[in-house]
């Protein structure tokens, strides 16, 4: 990995910003966490919606 790209000659992979393992795994972890939390949010939204419905 070698971003930021300051010259294109010889450049191969460029994982912008995630150019060090620590940052890469942090970004990847955040993406995975967002996915998981969003699924949990779907469940929470449903639960609240159905509770509202049964209280009417």
């Amino acid at each position, binding site marked *: 990995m070698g971003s930021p790209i300051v010259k294109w000659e010889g*450049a*191969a992979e460029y994982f*912008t910003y995630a150019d060090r393992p620590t940052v890469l795994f942090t970004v*990847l972890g955040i993406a995975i966490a967002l996915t998981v939390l969003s699924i949990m949010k779907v469940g929470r939204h*449903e639960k609240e919606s*159905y509770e509202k419905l049964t209280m009417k």
Partner: protein
Amino acid sequence: MDQQLAELTAKVAALQQSAGMQGTIDIEVYYFWATALMVLIHAGFLGYEMGASRAKNVLASGIKNILAFAFIVPTFFFFGWWIYLAFPGGFTPSADGDAGLPWAMAMGPNLSDNASGVFWAAFTMFAATTASIFSGAVIERIKMSGFVLLAILLGSVLWILGAAWGWHPSGWLLTDWGFHDFGCAGIVHLIAGAFCFGVLINLGPRIGKYLSDGTAVDIPPHNVPMVLVGLMLIIVGFFGFLAACVIMVKGGQWTNIYGQPMTLSAVAFNTLMAFAGGVIGAWAFTRDPFWMMSGGLAGIIASAAGIDVWYPPLGFVIGFVGGATIKTVNDGVVKVLRLDDAVGAVAVHGWSGFLGLMVVGLFATGYANPGDAPPISFMGQLVGALVCFSIGFVPGFIASYCLKVVRLLRVPDEAQLVGLDIAEVPLKAYPESDTAGAAGALQPAE
């Protein structure tokens, strides 16, 4: 003289490099646009599924379909592609999977790798297709959270495991059994149909679908024209899907995923003939536009496994049989087994996918496979079909049973009766119409 020779050699080298790069980019362009065409499959499933819903559930069905697509993409990046590369030998991962790990150098912009991204994208669209197939079968009563989990299981784990086994040049179904499934009749459609079958058993029917004596009640789509247009869009997207099933070889003849030579012309001949056969077959036996258009889909699926090898009139006949039989199979699922498959996914995808694999075993037995793999055989196709069914059905049944136990599978009856749009969507599909009142008129029969 020596200088001229050196200049000529340099020119030849430059030309070779240029031609090589052009070939690389041609391949990249081909799969990129095939992937773009495949998005139409999802536009089609969206219209199909929303049209097949009652008006009181139309937006909830649409959201569910779009979310399935959206959640498949990151999860397929996180682990789906790794599964494909790592498991062609069975359940033990191989080091080949390392290239598909989300931190691998191939899994991002890379000037020395024009292939990984477009192949990953094409496979991701296949994955999303399996989730969309499942999405339609369970409309109007499945919980979104449970659905998303099941869609990820199907799209980013199960079908791609099946693809590693039977749609990979080193997959054990090919190397041990000579399995042939050019257009994923089994790997995508049978697996997805079997998964639907397993989930429907635990999910149960929509309220009002069955009378107290078990008689099935027809719950008509709220918008048949939307269903028909949706199905036609799926057909358009199928051209991208089937194009992406072909391997473009730099400077050589096209091959299928197994390495057998083929042409795009074969796909063109047989996709159209099978589509036409399916439409005509379904129309002849049902007179129903819903099944007629579903028949087009069934025709292509029934021919898909051998679309690279059929004589076009045979593709037409296979498509005709696929289209002609789906309504009967669906009647068996809905009326005999009492499984409320809202769009006929088990019949259209599961049955047609099974049929597609078996006709290859009947008509293409003996065709050679590359390397040491045995030739195509009826037994190889039967084993493949059983594996595809099992990969879909068993995990689908077990996972949906677990979700049922923890109450993440089925929406409460109150929500079903009032309509999922009113229950959980902060927007009206048809604000100028009292659709909830009209469409919600169907009351429980028991």
